[in-house]
C-alpha cells in the first residue's frame, strides 16, 4: 500500500458510489426553491400581520401615548433587524478563496458579537421606555392585571437574558474557531517563508 494507490482507491470509491446512488437534480432544485418560497411566504405573512396590527391600533381609539409607544416598539424592531442585516451582510462569501471566506466569516462574527454586546442600548432601553409608556396609559387597574403583567415581563426578561447569553457564548466560540482556522492557514504561508 503506497500513497498513490491509496489515492486511486479513494477516487475509485466515490466514482463507484456516485454511479450506484445516482443524482436527482430536479429534487435538489425543488428543495432549494421550496426553501426560498417558504422564506418569502413567512416574510409576507409577517408584513401583512403587522399591517393589520397597526390598522387595529389606529382604529381602536388608542390615545397618543399608546400610539407613540407602539411606534417606538415597531421602530426598535425594524432598526434591530436592519442592524443585524448590516452586521451580517447579504453578500455570499462561500465562492471566495478559503482564506478570504474565513476572514469574511470572522469579520461577520466580530460585528455580530459587538451588536449583541450593545443590545441593552439598542433594544432594552427603547423597549423599557415603550413599556413604561404603555403602563402609564393603561386603563387596567386591577391587581390581577399587574400580577399577570409582572409575571409575563419577568419570564420575557429571563428568556431574553438567557437567550442573549447563549447567543453570545456561541458567537465567542465561533470567533475563536474562525481565528484558529485563519491562523492555521496563515501559518502554512509563514512556514514556507521560514523554509
Amino acid at each position, binding site marked *: 500500500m503506497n*500513497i498513490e494507490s491509496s489515492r486511486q482507491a479513494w477516487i475509485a470509491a*466515490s*466514482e463507484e*458510489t456516485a454511479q450506484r446512488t445516482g443524482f436527482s437534480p430536479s429534487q*435538489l432544485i425543488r428543495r432549494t426553491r421550496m426553501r426560498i418560497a417558504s422564506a418569502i411566504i413567512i416574510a409576507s405573512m409577517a408584513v401583512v400581520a403587522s399591517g393589520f396590527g397597526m390598522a387595529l391600533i389606529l382604529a381602536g381609539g388608542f390615545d397618543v401615548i399608546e400610539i407613540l409607544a407602539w411606534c417606538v416598539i415597531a421602530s426598535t424592531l425594524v432598526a434591530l433587524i436592519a442592524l443585524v442585516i448590516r452586521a451580517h451582510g447579504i453578500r455570499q462569501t*462561500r465562492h471566495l478563496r*478559503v482564506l478570504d471566506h474565513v476572514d469574511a466569516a470572522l469579520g461577520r462574527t466580530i460585528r455580530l458579537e459587538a451588536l449583541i454586546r450593545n443590545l441593552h442600548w439598542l433594544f432594552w432601553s427603547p423597549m423599557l421606555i415603550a413599556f413604561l409608556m404603555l403602563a402609564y396609559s393603561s386603563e387596567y387597574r386591577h391587581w390581577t392585571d399587574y400580577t399577570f403583567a409582572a409575571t409575563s415581563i419577568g419570564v420575557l426578561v429571563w428568556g431574553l437574558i438567557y437567550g442573549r447569553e447563549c447567543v453570545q457564548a*456561541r458567537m465567542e466560540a465561533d470567533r475563536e474557531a474562525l481565528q484558529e*482556522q485563519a491562523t492555521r492557514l496563515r501559518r502554512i504561508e509563514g512556514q514556507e517563508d521560514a523554509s
Partner: protein
Amino acid sequence: MRHADDIARLESFLPAVRRIASAYASYGEDADLHQEILAQLWRSRRHFNGQAQYSTWAYRVALNTAIDHVRRERHRRETLKHLQLVDRRKATVETSLHLSREAQVIKAFCDTLDVAERSLFALYLEGLEYARISEVLGISAGASRTRVSRLKKKFKRHLEGEALEH
C-alpha cells in the same frame, strides 16, 4: 439551455463533492454534507463568472461549505454535551461512501488533520496542481508545495503504522 448546462456541470463535479464530504464529515454525516454542498453549489451558481475554471470555483464552494459544517457540528456537539443529551447520530457508524481498506486509511488520516491541513490534503487527493491549490485556498503555490510534501511524508508514516498494525 442554461439550466441544463448548470445541471451538467454540477453532475460532472458530483464524485468530487462526495469525496470532500467524506473527508470532512464524521461517519454517518457525509450524506448530509454532500447534500449541503450540492445545494450551496446550486445556489451560488450565479457567482461563477468564468474567471477561473469551474472546478476551481466549485472546490472553493465545497471546501468553504465543509469547513463551516465542521464548525457548526462542533458547536452542536458541545451544546448537546452541555445539555447532557445524547447525540443520536453517533449511533450510525456506516458511511454513504463504501470505502475500500485503502480508502478507509485515508479517511482515518484525514480525521487526524486540522481544517487547514485537511483542505490541502483533500485537494492533493483530487490531483490538483500546486498553482490551483493556491488559487482555491488563497495561499502561495510555494507554500502549498512545501506543506503538501510534509503532509505526504506524514501520510507515509501513517501508512507504515497501519501496515505494522495489520
